[in-house]
Each structure stands twice: as C-alpha cells, then as structure tokens.
C-alpha cells in the first residue's frame, strides 16, 4: 500500500550536509498500523511529512497504491490523506462542525452529505453531534479536542492516515483511553496508518508493525513481538528497554497461553482454592503479576461468566517467554 524506496532527506547547513532521513526503504501493507518509533531528531516526523509532501524528498521515492507521490498534485494528494498532529491544530475561528467538515468542503461535497458525515464521525469518536455542533475548540478539553482532530482527519474517508504523536500531549489516563478508542475505530475503518511515536509502550499497544529509527536510519522493522523478542542491535535493545520480556507479555492474553497447554481444564488440586483469579482476556503481563502475588504461585483462570476454567502456574509462562523456571531450579539448588 505504502512503499518507501531509498528515501533520503538531506539538509544543507553551510557546507555541511545533514541527513535527516538516510536511505530508508519500507513497505506498509494495506489496513495496517505502522508505528515510526525513535528518539527525537531521528527523522521519524520528517519521513512522515514527506508522505503528504509537506517536506520535499531529496532522494528516492514514495509510492501509495503503486503511484509515485511526486507525480501527483500535492493539494489533491493531501486531501486524500488524513493528517493528525500532536498540537491538534483545530481551527479556533470555526465551530466543531465546520472543523470536521473542512476536507469534505474542500472536496465540494453537498451539504446533506457533509451533515450526515459529521453525525457519523461524532458518533464514531463518542461525542454527541448535537451538543458540540455549534461549539468552539477552546470550549473542549484536550482529550475531546484530539478526538475531533481524529474525526476531522477521517472526514473524507481517506485510505491513508498520517498521525504525528497524536496522543503525546495528553495525560496518561486519557491517552490510554484514546488509544483504545483509536484501536476500536481502526477495527471498523481499516485504514493504512503511519503513526509517529517516541513511546515504546504506545507502539506495542497500537502497532501491527514497528519501524525503529536512529539518526535517520531504519534500525529494525517488524512486528512488536519480533522487535521485543529479537532486537536486531544494541540500539534497539536499549530503546525497547531491559524489561522487554515483560512488555512482550502485554501482546498476549491468557487465552493465547492456555490454548498452548494440553489438558488445561483438568488441572486442579484441593488446596488451590483461593481468590487469585484472572479473566481469559487479561494480558499476560497483568496475569504474571497476579501469579507472582499469589502465595501458591498460581492463579485461577475464569471465563467471561466468571466460571473457573483451570489453574495457571508460573511455570506455564515459559511457553511464551525465555524464562525457563524448570531448568532454572536445578541450577539454583546447586548454588
């Protein structure tokens, strides 16, 4: 869907050349979220802004749906790409409805269609269309503003979305809520999304693929699981953090784990009747925490209706991680 081919961005400062983006080749599949991850100044935002031609490309080319973007009209290209930025950038002189209708208006949709679309989008981002129609951006909280920002970018139903740290300025609680809502929306709309972030946890939560950058160069491109379980070099290893195995556990749920255990339902002993329970859709990191706090080293797995399915123990985690508790015991005993 989106293809970067040997893309570079070179800035001249005096007689020195600075490579903001250095020979990046990357392929993003349709309907996937690719998170550009890296420290500030690594070129991730520059790369993103080259896609809608806000920054001209120095070398190489970018293709969307097989079309070279340098051959397209930049104005039309931008209207076909949703764009969300960290500062939100809602237009203060326009009402919420006018803000959301900007691109449909630019594209010359008729009024009835724009109005219908506004209602749809507001429902989608969980805000009441009537309540906010005539209100202005300054009357909204930061979280609400960014919801409008996302709705505005989705207005003309563009196949591609560019999101530059959209949740970066929000407090952690609101950020997590918006991330979850964003995933829920994405499940329905299935856009191809390029998402810039410097937050590894955000990347793990949202990404289908992560691309990690360091000073303009692509370090590693892969699924969150690949990046966490098999970092390609020291930079990636440092960036994802030494708790990467714990982070990896957030990618899986109890359901994933017990599907790999034979005869899980039959496991039980009499004295295991305690109150340490996890639901089947809990992520494994939280589950591990429950298991560790349980005095017997195991926890009950319950289904959606709180019926106990079976008992999960610390040893089971070795299926998904590199922790090998059984092998570890003899070593510890010898010591």
């Amino acid at each position: 869907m989106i293809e970067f081919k040997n893309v570079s961005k070179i800035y001249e400062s005096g007689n020195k050349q600075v490579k903001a983006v250095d020979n990046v080749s990357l392929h993003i599949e349709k309907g996937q979220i690719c998170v550009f991850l890296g420290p500030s100044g690594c070129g991730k935002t520059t790369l993103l802004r080259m896609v809608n031609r806000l920054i001209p490309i120095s070398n190489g080319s970018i293709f969307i749906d097989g079309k070279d973007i340098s051959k397209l009209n930049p104005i039309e290209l931008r209207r076909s790409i949703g764009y969300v930025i960290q500062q939100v950038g809602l237009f203060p002189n326009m009402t919420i409805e006018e803000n959301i209708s900007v691109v449909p208006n630019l594209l010359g949709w008729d009024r009835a269609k724009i109005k219908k679309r506004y209602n749809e989008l507001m429902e989608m981002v969980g805000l009441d269309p009537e309540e906010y129609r005539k209100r202005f951006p300054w009357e909204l909280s930061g979280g609400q503003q960014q919801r409008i920002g996302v709705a505005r970018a989705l207005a003309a139903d563009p196949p591609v979305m560019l999101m530059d740290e959209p949740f970066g300025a929000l407090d952690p609680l609101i950020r997590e809520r918006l991330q979850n809502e964003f995933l829920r929306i994405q499940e329905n709309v299935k856009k191809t999304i390029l998402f810039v972030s410097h937050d590894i946890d955000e990347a793990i939560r949202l990404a289908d693929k992560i691309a990690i950058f360091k000073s303009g160069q692509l370090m590693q491109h892969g699924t969150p699981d690949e990046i966490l379980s098999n970092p390609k070099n020291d930079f990636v290893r440092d960036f994802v953090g030494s708790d990467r195995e714990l982070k990896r556990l957030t990618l899986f749920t109890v359901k994933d784990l017990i599907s790999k255990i034979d005869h899980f339902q039959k496991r039980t002993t009499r004295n295991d009747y305690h109150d340490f329970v996890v639901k089947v859709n809990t992520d494994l990191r939280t589950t591990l925490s429950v298991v560790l706090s349980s005095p017997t080293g195991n926890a009950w797995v319950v289904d959606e209706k709180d019926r106990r399915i079976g008992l999960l123990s610390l040893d089971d985690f070795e299926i998904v991680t590199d922790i090998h508790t059984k092998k570890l015991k003899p070593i510890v005993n010898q010591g």
Partner: protein
Amino acid sequence: MILVRGKKLELSFRIAITLLIICLFIWAYFEGAFQFIKDNPGDLIILLQQHVKIVGLSAMLAVAFAVPVGIFITRPRFKKYDWIVINFANIGQTIPTLAVLALIMSYLGIGYTTAVFSLWLYSLLPILRNTVVGIKSVNPSIIDAGKGMGMTSWQILWKLELPNALYAILAGIRTSIVINVGSAALAFLIGGGGLGDLIFTGISLYDTGIMLSGAVPVTLLAITLDFLLGKLEKIIIPKGLQRNEEAV
C-alpha cells in the same frame, strides 16, 4: 485572579477617563463653548463635516493600502524581510504628526489633499504593523494542519490566517482612526479645514470658549468612533475567537 485584577484596573481606568471627560465638558460649559456652538451651528456642522471627511478618506485609503501590503509581506517568500517593515513602522511612528505635515507640505503645497495625504501616511503604520504581527502570531500548528489537509495557500490566507489575525488587524485600524481624529485638527494649519479651525482660532484669540468649542466635538467624535469600531469588532470577529470577553 490576575484576570479579575486586570478587569478591576480596567474598570477604574475607565471611570477615571470618564470623569476627566466630564470635567472637560463642565469646563467647556463655563468657558461658554456650548454658547458659541449654539450661536454658530452652521459653522460647526461644516467644520465637523470637513473633519470627518479628512479622517474618513485618509483612514479608508490607509486600510486599503496597509492591509494588502501587510498580507503581501507575510507570504512565505517575503517572511524573512518582514522585520524591516515592522522596524520601519515602529520608527515611523515616533515622527511627530506636525513634522509629517510640514514635510509633505513642502512637496504638495497647502490644502485638503496634503492634509489627507499626510494623515494617510501617518495612519498606515499602526495598521501595517498590526496586520503583519497579527498574521505572524497565528498559531503555526493551525497553518500546518490546514496545509496538511490540502488547503491551497489562498484558502489558508482567507480561512485561517485572516480570521485568526482579525483581532489584531482591527485593533490597528481602531487605534489609527482614533489617533487620526486628533491629528486631523492640525490640518487647519496647512489649510485643510476641519475642527482645528476653531481650536487654533481660539488659541490665537486667547478665547478658551472658542478653542473648546472645537476641542469638545473632536473628543466626542473620537469617543464615538472608538465605540462604534468596538461594536464592529464584536460583529465581524469570529465568535470562536471572542472567548476572553465571554469568559468573564
């Protein structure tokens, strides 16, 4: 808290100004200014008309010139050089009106045209400066969002830059017109007419009454115009940008 204190300060300031103006009127009454106006209503109306004409024409021409120039020099191509214009405008503002009049007079001679031209030149600067600063201070993330959504530079100007800079631009126009009402009294000195006629006649005759019969209408004209322009701001500035007043 700070806002409240600011409001209180503004209120006490307004009261002080109003009291001062009332004092002026009382003084004018006892000096016989109103008697003079009552005795010569025809003169006053003619002079007032001249005055309004000079102010109106020079202000209109100034707006028609300074706003487009301000827009022009804030275009990306020229943005690097806008400091020149701002500095020029700031320095230009320090030249006394009388000096401008004298300078222009030596080229254009005396009369109505010279008066209008000088006042036009003098009112350009606040409008120009406010237009440039207003457009420059529009939040860059708004422009970035607009551009990224596929607005043309023309659409960015009309839908984003101008509406968001309107407050500053109108403030510049308002300031310049109010100053202009006062400065236009000097037009009499170069044969341009206006209420300055009464003021300077009064001064030369040591007749405070006649002097005030010119000064009081000038003051009233300035206050009225300021009030009307304030109302106009409320009407044409987008509602989303008027939060400061509504919030209190």
